[in-house]
């Protein structure tokens, strides 16, 4: 077996920094691992003003995961209803990944959504990764 090579000064410093980086990484993973983890809990709400351009109405919504576990393929449904409760327009979007405590902004575009209409949002489903 080959003998050990003496370390130059800069190599010692590089090694010390490398160990610190690796310990920080392992420590962070371990800390996250011992935290109690809750199931994904997805909420969705309108996060901005409605913006109307010609016949189109743009609605920004925020999907958030209040839990710790990741949700995959989060399906968000939106419905525009008139004061009589009749559905005027519908939309659907899917968020690929929503990690714990992450949020994403989505924009729905509806045709003919008058200002007096209401927007109903709901999360329909998600995959457990």
């Amino acid at each position, binding site marked *: 077996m080959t003998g050990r090579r003496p370390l130059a000064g*800069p190599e010692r410093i590089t*090694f010390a*920094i490398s160990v610190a980086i690796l310990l920080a990484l*392992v420590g962070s993973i371990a800390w996250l691992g011992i935290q109690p983890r809750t199931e994904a809990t997805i909420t969705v709400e309108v996060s901005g003003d409605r913006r109307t351009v010609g016949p189109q109405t743009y609605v920004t919504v925020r999907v958030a995961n209040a839990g710790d*576990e990741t949700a995959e393929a989060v399906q968000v449904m939106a419905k525009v209803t008139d004061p009589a409760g009749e559905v005027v327009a519908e939309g659907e979007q899917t968020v690929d990944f929503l990690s714990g405590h992450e949020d994403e902004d989505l924009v729905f575009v509806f045709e003919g959504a008058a200002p007096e209409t209401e927007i109903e949002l709901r999360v329909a489903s998600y995959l457990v990764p």
Partner: protein
Amino acid sequence: MTGGVATQVALFGDESAWRTEATDLLRGVAGGMLFGTPLLFTMEVWGIGAAATPAGIARSLGLSIVPVFLLVQTAGFRRQAPLHPLDAARETVEAIAVGIVTVTAVLVLLGQITLRTPAVDALGKIVFEGAPFALGAAVASHLFRQARDQGDQGDQADRGQPGATQGSARAVVADRHGWHGTAADLGSTIIGALFVSSNIAPTAEIPMLAAAASPLRLLAIVGVTLIVTYAIVFGAGFGDQQKRREQRGVLQHPLTETTTAYLVALVVAAAVLLFFGNLHVGDPWPQVLDHAVLLGLPAAVGGAAGRLAV
């Protein structure tokens, strides 16, 4: 006083020791970029990292240490190999740290890790992307050292020393001066850029990254690409670096070669995106620009590898 200076030198090393160390680390970063860049543009890896649990991340980190250790012991992260197992363990830690730091920087640059990214998501991405980088850091030194060793044998032939190979490296350098050398470098840049960017251009990653890229981020990507490709070809000690610096062909000063090769890589990136339908003739120029700059990073890294192989 003199004793104090001697102690300082023993502890912190002299200037040449720092230069050697910087080159070794730069070679690790460059090797990681050469081998790990395509995976950085793969959204499935981002997804795997984002969906991983802390236990899964820890398991992957533990598993990635084994092949890195074996590669380091066989090839050596630095220049000396074979190594004592304890030295190999030390260099394994360093190779993994190089991978972690480099991958974190590139993921931040690409906007895959931001201040809004949850910690477990970021750690997952760093560990899953960092593993191939660490492997690249460990193996690249060995692979590109072969090219350098062959160059050294050519030098020995010039001096009439034993161990000489047929042909003369100096003659090759002379032949590579002027337009021939420039054409060879540009050709190998195109081939290397094509080789790497063709694997990424047909996928949805470039349009996805481009959609979220601000002008400031694009400028940062241009700067980092130029620095990384300069480091790979001229700073990391791969291949026949000294001979490359001695070349006197058109555009073959290190700075002009780096910028020219980058422009060539951008053109190749745009052409490959056009070929695969992720860009179209008549697309607005800002779209062409952000797509080309983003794919230009892996394309330029491939081009740099191509120039090393010539």
